[in-house]
């Protein structure tokens, strides 16, 4: 078993289906996490107040209130990572949860391995700042020099346009989280979107191509992952 980045991290699992909750709790428990369970919003808020967990797994459809109540409450108190469980065809609900402050989502029905990978990614990101004091962000072979607007892969320069650089900077700065289109647009273009804002997907595509051109081994081929209809996620490199 791989070593956990945050061994013994306490996870609040909010899920109303008892069967499902037990399965997930057992599974992540076996992987070294400690788990507190809640079946509704009231219990979840009480547990949050009492235990201050390191991460919240939140099902959005709960019996007593909408799961977004929990997101707002947690965000008011702390930057604790939140992973939302949602069903397909509810892209709007996923986007809303992410915009309210959730870090990522997993679509039901999901595989156990997928959930575990997502939990580890958000915990890694929460563990420390992505950029060092010099404004340099490193993701494996990729280095983004925020101060000097330079990007290198394996030390070789990647020539990005100013817009492309901004898009990459925002994605990389939120590595391990899912960045919605809306958040990306606001961060790069501000609230008054220019016409090109419509082309955010095309910019992402250009970045991928330019990175791939200096990355023949394909180490960064899956750096930026699209979640159709929701947003983009930059993968954190797996710890060695």
């Amino acid at each position, binding site marked *: 078993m791989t070593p956990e980045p945050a061994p013994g991290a306490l996870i609040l699992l909010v899920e109303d289906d008892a069967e499902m909750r037990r399965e997930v709790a057992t599974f992540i428990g076996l992987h070294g996490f400690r788990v507190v369970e809640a079946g509704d919003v009231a219990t979840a808020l009480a547990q949050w107040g009492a235990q201050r967990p390191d991460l919240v797994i939140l099902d959005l459809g709960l019996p007593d209130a909408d799961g977004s109540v929990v997101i707002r409450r947690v965000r008011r108190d702390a930057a604790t990572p939140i992973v939302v469980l949602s069903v*397909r065809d509810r892209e709007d609900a996923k986007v809303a949860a992410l915009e309210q402050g959730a870090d990522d989502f997993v679509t039901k029905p999901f595989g156990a391995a997928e959930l575990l990978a997502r939990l580890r990614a958000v915990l890694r990101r929460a563990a420390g700042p992505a950029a060092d004091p010099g404004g340099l962000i490193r993701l494996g072979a990729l280095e983004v020099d925020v101060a000097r607007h330079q990007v290198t892969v394996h030390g070789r320069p990647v020539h990005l346009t100013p817009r492309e650089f901004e898009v990459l900077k925002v994605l990389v700065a939120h590595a391990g989280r899912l960045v919605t289109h809306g958040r990306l647009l606001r961060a790069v273009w501000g609230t008054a979107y220019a016409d*090109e804002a*419509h*082309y955010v997907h*095309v910019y992402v*595509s250009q970045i991928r191509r330019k990175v791939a051109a200096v990355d023949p081994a394909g180490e960064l081929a*899956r750096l930026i*992952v*699209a979640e*159709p209809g929701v947003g983009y996620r930059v993968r954190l490199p797996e710890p060695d």
Partner: protein
Amino acid sequence: MLRIGSSSVRRVVGVVGAALVALGATTLVVAVLEDRLGVSNAAATYLLAVVAMAVAFGIPAAVGTAVGSFLLYDFVFVHPTGALIVADPEEWLNLLLLLALGVVVGQLAGLQRARAEAALLRERQALAQYRIGRALATGLSAVGALPEIVQLLQSEGMARRAWIALGTGASPERVVADGGGEGAPEVGASHNRLRREAGDEPAAWVRVHDPRQATPGVPDAGMECYRVPIVSGGADRGSVWIARRRAAGRPGRGETRVLAAAADQIGQALERDRLAEEATTAEVARRSEAAKTALLDSVSHDLRTPLASIRAAAGSLMDPALDLEPAARRERAAVIDREAERLNRLVANLLDMSRIEAGDLRARLEPFALEDLVETTLERMADLLAGHPVTVTMRADLPPVEVDPVFIDQVLTNLLENAARYAPLDAPIRVRAEQVAERTIRLTVEDGGPGVPAAALAGLFEKFSRGPRSGEGSRRGAGIGLAVVRGFVEAMGGSVAARSGELGGLAVDVDLRAAPLPREAGR
């Protein structure tokens, strides 16, 4: 009435004039014969005039001409001439023979004429009846033939105006065919209705007071309306109407027969149409029932197959007698995982299909690089596609496409799943894209499987058409995957088509809209 009277006066004057001309001409001929050529008695020549009048104007004119001949011959040729006195008894005999022969010959010739006229009328009426029947039999529908029928009734001279109105007893009749005239036909509070007895004839016209049939306008006082109800299947279906001059009297037997036959034939044709429509409705219902059955067959098969695998694998894992090795346990778990994912895709397609059918799909079109979209879907489906070499071919400078990312993801998923399902293990799958028109980019997914017979290609995107692909496995797979593909592509303003691919299997072409390149991204 006065105008009508004057017209019959004109007719009498015409006949008398013709008789006078005939008699005058005959008298001249007789004068020539007797005075110049010495013929002793040429009175029989007058019979020619009588026959001519009989043929031209009928029996009364012939009898009148015979009497005229008798008087004229007596006055002009018999001694003493210039007076209606006959001195010679032999002359008397001659004169009386002329009168008797004239009357008899005139009657015979007139009867012949009347018979010929009656035969002609019967023939015309029979022809009209035949043409009405033919119009109804050859027309696409009974209602479609009605305008021709009213024209026929009018051209036969039995009506100034003919029209046909339909309605089912309770509701007022609606005029569906009108032979002409200005404005709508006008009917007063009373009209003549054909009362028909059981059996054939005699049917009788009865004048009925029926304000329900009256129209708002004021009818022409000189016109009389006649109505023959159309009855079929024991119910009133409407009426054949004619309007004719009051002076022309009621329709004769022949005319009545044509009208009655027209009403009967229209009634039969309407009934025939009604039955045909019922049969069509029944056929549509039967087909939609068949489609539902096919849907249930398809869905229950596609749902149960993975469920069966899951239960079998779970059963092995649960069985205390079966002490499985860790590798074998993982294998069972992998089966459960894989089949559950298959169920998930099927449920997704079912939900998508219902959204497509409900028509509440709203595509959010945004420009995307097609290559990225394909890569995203391929990554997600890596496990399912593990048994097939997948190649992606598209130019780096391909313009972006305007698509809904969620829709296109499902489109690609279904096309790839379809290819992987039908292509045998290790058979290649190829994804290509090219710009085929200024604003059209064609994405093609093809496989090296057995393909689909040409005849079945067109129906491949119908719901629950499980393609009659040759070879084994033709029973497998969701019959709605390609229907969902079409629904989503069309919702994005694109189109899909299936054909035989260059790899030997099925090729599906998806035409998508190209987006113009942004200023900066093109650099």
